[in-house]
């Protein structure tokens, strides 16, 4: 499939996801070092690099412990004279930004590119963060593609800009760009063998503080001016000519919505399609807005472009009428689509929309009234389901459900806020559960309980854990050890004996680490032995000091795939109806999507094609009704 196209050595057309086109662009740029922490909507970039690692055998790759480490890894590689690349989701840059601001000052050596992907609509993120400000705030050039083709072309261009100006370059995308598949024209692939450099041959100074920082700042401002000059000239900032004095400023996927909306309305307004978010090509923009009476700014999230163009217009075109978020035409919420853009363009140009979208939506809403919701849910066989069930039983038995505070973290287990668990006191950011717990433990009478997954543990929870132990905090921490970074597609992490592409790595010994840190109590349990977990959890909760419950069982999706590779069969379970007494514990308290009810006799049925055969449901059933199906030889 498309991984084959990533590997192709010749040029030509290929159907590619934009994330894959980015990878191809990096390969065409002869990238040598890549490092990532997974995060939607960028995970396929990591996965694709991992998949072809062995094939190329001419670049090095880390799945890093977090985004900051990943950025530092590629910055270090650039300092050492190797082209390097990383990508991360919007909030990943929050973690990485500490180093990013300094990297801007020191500059780099070989081409170094970082892609950050915002997620309007918060499809798979904790916020609709607008990452465009990072470029300006740090003086790092930032560019934005609209299509998969541009994703490839701009990745290659980013390496050139980076290397020419000795700076990090950020490519900013949004979910709808990353997950867009289209025909892409590939360039030739000319890879060079991997060979380590000597520091003496490549060395520079990458150091910033005080007077050095002040000197670097002056240089950084000059550098920004130089980049700006280049950005005034690039074809990635283009004016698509049109008629009249109403024009549009847009970038990224919104450019595509604008084009389609104009086609639907049969109008051709002049469009400034912006490719560089920082520095902005102010001269080119000035020229564009001078000829206009009205400018429609089409951008998702905050009015980043709108405020900047308004400031520019104040001096060069003070009477310009700006249509955007401040005028109330567009929202700062959610993601845009053709109907949203078309409606505004129709209003401003006094045209009729090509379809009564509101009526379509209203009718659909009425038709869907009968449709039950399909909330996100743990997969069949998920060990978290058992852990959380046992946790609830333990709280009930200790009679403390109303005397605890539960701080959750980022991972599949974030879904613990949904029924039947409804643990939703806090959930903020990677590793935040332990920091929040420190404050709550100081301020509350209640028992403080936190939960992290193995990947989150090593990503950003460790400093918070050290802090809790150091302060003798009375906190219980669940570590859901499922072997992989499950939510983003089961990538390896420091808890895996593997790195990218399945290459060997060293697995961190979790219990020894907690022991060395000085945890007061460490218990290990298997969530598939669900009933036994209740006692283990109670013991940890009742212990004084900092206690850790390691709930250890691999992610079912990962485990099942590994079983399949080994040629092992999955044996699904069945509900023995003669035993089943219709108590519905499996329905009320367990929420496994493989379990449905037979309307003819009101007893449960296990959908064998969905069932993973984990038998957690047997543990939850008071009469042990579910059991493995007989295997026919």
């Amino acid at each position, binding site marked *: 499939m498309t991984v084959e196209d990533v590997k192709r050595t010749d040029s030509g057309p290929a159907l590619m996801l934009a994330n894959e086109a980015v990878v191809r662009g990096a390969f065409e740029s002869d990238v040598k070092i890549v490092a990532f922490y997974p995060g939607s909507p960028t995970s396929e970039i990591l996965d694709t690099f991992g998949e072809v690692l062995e094939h190329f055998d001419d670049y090095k790759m880390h799945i890093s412990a977090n985004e900051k480490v990943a950025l530092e890894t590629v910055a270090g590689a650039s300092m050492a004279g190797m082209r390097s690349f990383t990508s991360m989701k919007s909030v990943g840059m929050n973690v990485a930004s500490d180093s990013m601001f300094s990297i801007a000052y020191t500059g780099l050596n070989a081409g170094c590119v970082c892609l950050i992907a915002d997620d309007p609509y918060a499809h798979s993120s904790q916020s609709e963060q607008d990452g465009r400000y990072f470029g300006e705030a740090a003086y790092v050039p930032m560019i934005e593609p609209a299509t998969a083709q541009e994703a490839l072309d701009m990745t290659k261009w980013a390496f050139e800009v980076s290397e020419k100006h000795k700076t990090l370059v950020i490519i900013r995308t949004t979910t709808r760009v990353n997950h867009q598949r289209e025909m892409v024209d590939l360039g030739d692939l000319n890879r060079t063998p991997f060979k380590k450099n000597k520091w003496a041959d490549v060395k520079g100074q990458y150091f910033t503080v005080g007077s050095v920082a002040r000197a670097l700042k002056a240089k950084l401002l000059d550098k920004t001016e130089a980049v700006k000059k280049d950005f005034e000239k690039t074809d990635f900032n283009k004016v698509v000519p049109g008629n009249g004095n109403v024009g549009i400023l847009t970038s990224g996927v919104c450019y595509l919505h604008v084009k*389609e909306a104009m086609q639907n309305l049969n109008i051709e307004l002049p469009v400034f399609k912006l490719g560089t978010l920082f520095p902005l090509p102010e001269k080119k923009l000035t020229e564009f807005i001078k000829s206009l009476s009205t400018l429609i700014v089409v951008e998702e999230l905050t009015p980043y472009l709108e405020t900047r163009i308004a400031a520019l217009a104040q001096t060069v075109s003070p009477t310009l009428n700006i249509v955007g978020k401040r005028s109330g035409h567009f929202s700062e919420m959610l993601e845009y689509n053709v109907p949203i853009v078309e409606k505004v363009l129709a209003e401003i140009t006094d045209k009729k929309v090509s379809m009564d*979208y509101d009526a379509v939506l209203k009718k659909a809403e009425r038709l869907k009234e009968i449709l039950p919701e399909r909330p*996100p849910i743990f997969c*069949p066989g998920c060990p978290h389901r058992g852990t959380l069930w046992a946790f609830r039983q333990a709280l009930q038995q200790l009679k403390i459900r109303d005397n605890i505070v539960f701080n959750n973290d980022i991972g599949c287990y974030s879904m613990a806020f949904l029924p039947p668990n409804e643990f939703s006191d806090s959930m903020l950011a990677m590793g935040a559960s332990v920091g929040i717990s420190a404050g709550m433990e100081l301020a509350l009478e209640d028992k403080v309980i936190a939960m992290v997954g193995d990947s989150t543990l090593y990503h950003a929870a460790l400093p918070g854990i050290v802090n809790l132990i150091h302060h003798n905090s009375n906190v219980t921490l669940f570590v859901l050890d499922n072997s992989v970074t499950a939510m983003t597609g089961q990538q390896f992490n420091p808890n895996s004996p593997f790195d990218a592409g399945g290459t060997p790595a060293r697995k961190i010994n979790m219990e020894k680490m907690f022991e060395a840190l000085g945890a007061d109590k460490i218990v290990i349990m298997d969530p598939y032995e669900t009933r036994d977990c209740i006692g283990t959890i109670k013991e940890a909760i009742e212990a004084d000091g900092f206690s850790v419950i390691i709930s250890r069982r691999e992610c079912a999706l990962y485990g099942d795939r590994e079983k399949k590779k080994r040629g092992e069969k999955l044996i699904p379970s069945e509900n023995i109806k003669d035993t089943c007494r219709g108590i519905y514990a499996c329905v009320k308290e367990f929420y496994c999507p493989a*379990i449905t009810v037979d309307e003819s006799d009101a007893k449960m049925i296990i959908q064998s094609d969905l069932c993973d055969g984990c038998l957690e449901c047997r543990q939850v059933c008071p009469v042990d009704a579910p059991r493995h199906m007989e295997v026919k030889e």
Partner: protein
Amino acid sequence: MSKEGKTFNIMFAGVGGQGLMLLSAILGKAAVDSGLKVMTGEQHGLSQRQGSIYVHFRIGEPISPLIPYGKADMLIAMEASEALRYVEYLKENGVVIMSNRIMPSVTETKSVALDKEKQTSYLSVEDIVKQLEQVTSRIVLLDSLELAIQAGNARTENSVLIGATVACEDFPIPAEEARGAVLALVPPKTQNANSKAFDLGFESSSGCLGI
């Protein structure tokens, strides 16, 4: 092809784990092999099973990766309730090709199981079809699992649906290109079953969609 920029729009819908991405990849390859331009807006992200998922699939001269509401020429659903979930994309009298399989959500199972009066029942395929019929009369309902089993492999539902899609006379990709793409992208051992599944889907759907 529809008038809007000569683009043929298909909305795929299903439940995580059903293989919607493979379905989309197969038709993507078929479109490209037929010399047609294609663009998709896919939903990746959280990897959990059993969630609602979709792919916007556009052939011809697509511009935006997202189909505007009311402009999908076809709605292909691997799970029946998911067809209704994306009905706002379907154009008036567009084609619906849907599996009759329903995978109830756990919350629905809970309300059915816990209703002591037994008044609550699962949403039925008939209920869903009745709603869809308020937008279109061109609905092909397939027992895709049964057909896949008939073809010799329960995991060939994808190919059943592709066969049924290709049988629709509006569909711009020639049948043999689609079959070729199926065979190229499924595991070699399952090629026979997939080919059979493709035929069974084709047969079940042809004749239903004459305009």
